[in-house]
C-alpha cells in the first residue's frame, strides 16, 4: 500500500501522458491540459511545504539561539513582509509603483544581479586554473575561450584589424560558436535526450524508485 499505490500512480500517469502525445484528439488535449494544470497546483502545495520547512529551520535557529540566529530574524521578517504585501494587494504585480514591485526592483533584482556579477571574479580565478595550458585539451579549451572572449569585444578586432575579413577575432569567434560549438552541443543534447528518455522510462516502469525515499 505504501509503495505499491505511488508506483501504480506513476505508471498510470506516466504511461497515459506519454501515450497521449501521439493522439491528436481534442479529448486527449483537454485531459493533457488538465493534468498539467493539476501538476502546477500540486507544485504550489509542494512549495508551501518548502516554505514551511524554511520557517521551521529559521524558527528553530532563533528559538535555540544557534550561531548567527539574528540573521534568521531578517529572513523571517522579510518573508512575512513580502507575503503579506503580495497576498493583500491583488493588483500589486501589475503596478510597477506598488510596494511589492518596488521591493522587487530595488531589493531582489539588484542583489541577484550583484550575486551573478560577483561570479565574474570567481570565474576569473577558475579561468586561471583551467587555462594553465599543460595539455592539448587544456590548450584547446583556453584558445577557444580566449578567441570567443576577444571576438566579442572591441579590442579583439582592434588587435586583428590588419588581417583580411574572415580571419579577425570576431569572425573566428563566430565560426567557433557556429560550428565546433554546435557539434559539441549536439553531441551533448543527444546524450541528454537519451539520458532523460531512459530515466523517465525507468521511473514510469518503477525500476527507478529512489524518489520513494527510505522507510516502508
Amino acid at each position, binding site marked *: 500500500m505504501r509503495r505499491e499505490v505511488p508506483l501504480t500512480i506513476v505508471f498510470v500517469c506516466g504511461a497515459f501522458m*506519454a501515450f497521449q502525445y501521439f493522439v491528436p484528439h481534442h479529448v486527449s488535449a483537454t485531459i493533457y491540459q488538465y493534468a498539467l494544470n493539476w501538476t502546477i497546483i500540486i507544485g504550489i*502545495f509542494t512549495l*508551501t511545504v518548502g516554505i514551511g520547512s524554511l520557517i521551521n529551520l529559521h524558527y528553530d535557529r532563533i528559538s535555540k539561539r544557534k550561531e548567527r540566529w539574528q*540573521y534568521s530574524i531578517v529572513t523571517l521578517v522579510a518573508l512575512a513582509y513580502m507575503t503579506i504585501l*503580495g497576498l493583500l494587494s491583488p493588483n500589486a504585480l501589475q503596478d510597477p509603483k506598488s510596494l511589492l514591485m518596488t521591493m522587487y526592483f530595488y*531589493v531582489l533584482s539588484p542583489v541577484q544581479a550583484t550575486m551573478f556579477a560577483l561570479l565574474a571574479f570567481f570565474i576569473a580565478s577558475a579561468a586561471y586554473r583551467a587555462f594553465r595550458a599543460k595539455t592539448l585539451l587544456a590548450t584547446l579549451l583556453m584558445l577557444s575561450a580566449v578567441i570567443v572572449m576577444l571576438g566579442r569585444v572591441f579590442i579583439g578586432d582592434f588587435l586583428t584589424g590588419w588581417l583580411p575579413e574572415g580571419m579577425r577575432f570576431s569572425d573566428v569567434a563566430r565560426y567557433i560558436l557556429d560550428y565546433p560549438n554546435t557539434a559539441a552541443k*549536439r*553531441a551533448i543534447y543527444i546524450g541528454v*535526450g537519451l539520458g532523460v528518455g531512459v530515466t523517465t522510462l525507468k521511473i514510469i516502469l518503477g525500476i527507478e524508485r529512489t524518489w520513494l525515499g527510505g522507510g516502508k
Partner: protein
Amino acid sequence: MEQVSLGTMFWMTVAAFLTFCIFSFLYRDNPFYRFAEHLVVGISAGYWIAILYHTSLTDLWIDPLVASVTAFGTAEGSVAGKTGMLIVNITPGAIGVLMFSRFFKKTSWISRWPIAYYLGVSAGVALPLYLQGFVIRQVAANMMDPRSIFGMIFAGGGAADFFQGIGEIIIIIGSICGLAYFYFSAEHKGVFGGAAKLGIWILMIGFGATFGYTVMARISLLIGRLNYLIEWVRALNGFFGS
C-alpha cells in the same frame, strides 16, 4: 541628470547599499553580506508566494473551484455535469493537501501520492518531448545532403561558402565523435578510440566557447552593477546639490 524624488532616492540608496553588501564578500564573509543574503532569501520566497498565488493558484484552482460551486445556484447545465466539474476542480487541491502529511511522521508516507502524480505526469510529458526535441531533431539536423556540403566546398563560390562547407563537416563528424566519447560500453581504442579522441577535442572547443561566453555575460552584469552605482552617485549629487 533629472532630479529624483525623495522616495526614489531612498530606494536607490537601499539598492546601492545592498550592492555594496554583496560586493563586500570579495574581501571575506562578513555581517553585511550575510544580512543581504538572508534578506534576499526571505524577500525572494515571499515574492514567489505572491506570484504563484495570484498567477497560478487563483487562476487555475481557486477561481474555477468557486465557479463550479456557485454553478449549483444557477439553472444552467445538468447536476451531473456540475458535480463532475466540482470533482475535477476539488481533486488537485485534495491531492496537494496530502503533501502536508509530511509534517507528521506517522502519515508522511501519504505524501508519496502527490509526488507520484507529479513525477508520473512530468515523466510522461518529458519522455516523448525530449526524445523528439533532443534526439530526433538533432539527429535529423545532422543528416545533411552531402551534395550540398561538397557543392559549397568545391563549387568555387568563394571563401565564405568553402568555410561554411567545412563547418558543416565539423558539425557532422564532431557530433558523432562527441557521442563516441560518451559511449563507455566499448573500450576507447583503435578507430573507435580515435573517434572518441577527436570527440573530446571538439567537446573541449565547445566547452571553451561556452566558458568564454559565460565570462562575458558575467562581466557585462558586473559592468551593469558598476554603472548603477555611478548612476546612484550622480542622483545623490543631484539630490543634495540642488
